[in-house]
């Protein structure tokens, strides 16, 4: 029964989407973190999805291949009163693009929803299969 395999496929996709949501949350939370435990400015993080075979018979799930740091340039703000400012009065701020992150968040939550619905449909089909011939 490859219907059972759909649970693995949808499960792996939900797992990947929730990890994406997690990075969005950490990016938004740290949108103004000019420093961190290691003294570096926070850099936005992005997940990289990769298709991965699940079981036999051509089912394809999703896994998170890597979490990479965003390579876009850091924001520079003029704030001479800030203790982190350089000698010209500029502070380097994280390269988090709030609009992009919000779009990412909505996309992740919609994809998560469609995977949940997929699981529900499959569950209904399997339960109906169990009542075959009754």
């Amino acid at each position, binding site marked *: 029964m490859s219907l059972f*395999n759909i649970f693995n496929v949808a499960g792996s*996709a939900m797992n990947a989407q929730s990890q994406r949501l997690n990075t969005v949350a950490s990016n938004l939370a740290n949108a103004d973190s000019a420093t961190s435990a290691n003294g570096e400015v926070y850099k936005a993080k992005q997940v990289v999805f990769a298709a991965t075979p699940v079981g036999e*018979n*051509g*089912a394809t799930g999703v896994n998170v291949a890597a979490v990479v740091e965003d390579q876009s340039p850091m924001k520079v703000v003029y704030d001479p009163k800030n203790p982190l400012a350089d000698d010209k009065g500029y502070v380097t701020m994280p390269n988090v693009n709030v609009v992009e992150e919000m779009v990412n968040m909505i996309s992740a939550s919609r994809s998560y929803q469609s*995977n949940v619905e997929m699981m529900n449909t499959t569950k209904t*089909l399997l339960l*109906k299969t169990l009542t*075959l*011939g009754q």
Partner: protein
Amino acid sequence: MLNRLDDMLNFHHQALRVRDQRQQVLASNIANADTPNFKARDLDFKTALQGALKGAGTPGAVTVATTAPGHMKGNPGIASDANLLYRTPAQGSVDGNTVDMDAERAAFADNAIHYEFNLNRLSSQIKSLLSVIQG
């Protein structure tokens, strides 16, 4: 007699198998809606069902070797790589992904209904057989 019973139930049994496999392929497409460079796939139901009804499986499918007359033929997978086709994207996307969410969701719902239909038919066939047996 048993052979005839099997013949009677075989069509919907095979149709269910193909529907089952197709559901899995469509699920993979929906799951990978956000994966870069993922190419959406599907199987041609008509060809797959014809192949499944012939019992020989499909071109390119792996079959089990039979060395004695009592050996069973085995069940070659329907959704084998040779049988899966790639979708032609209606609108291309920058990341090379060809999953069209609307089309996939529609196909998924359509396939689910057809699965239920085949299940229903099979169920009523079993019921009529039972009523023949029990009188």
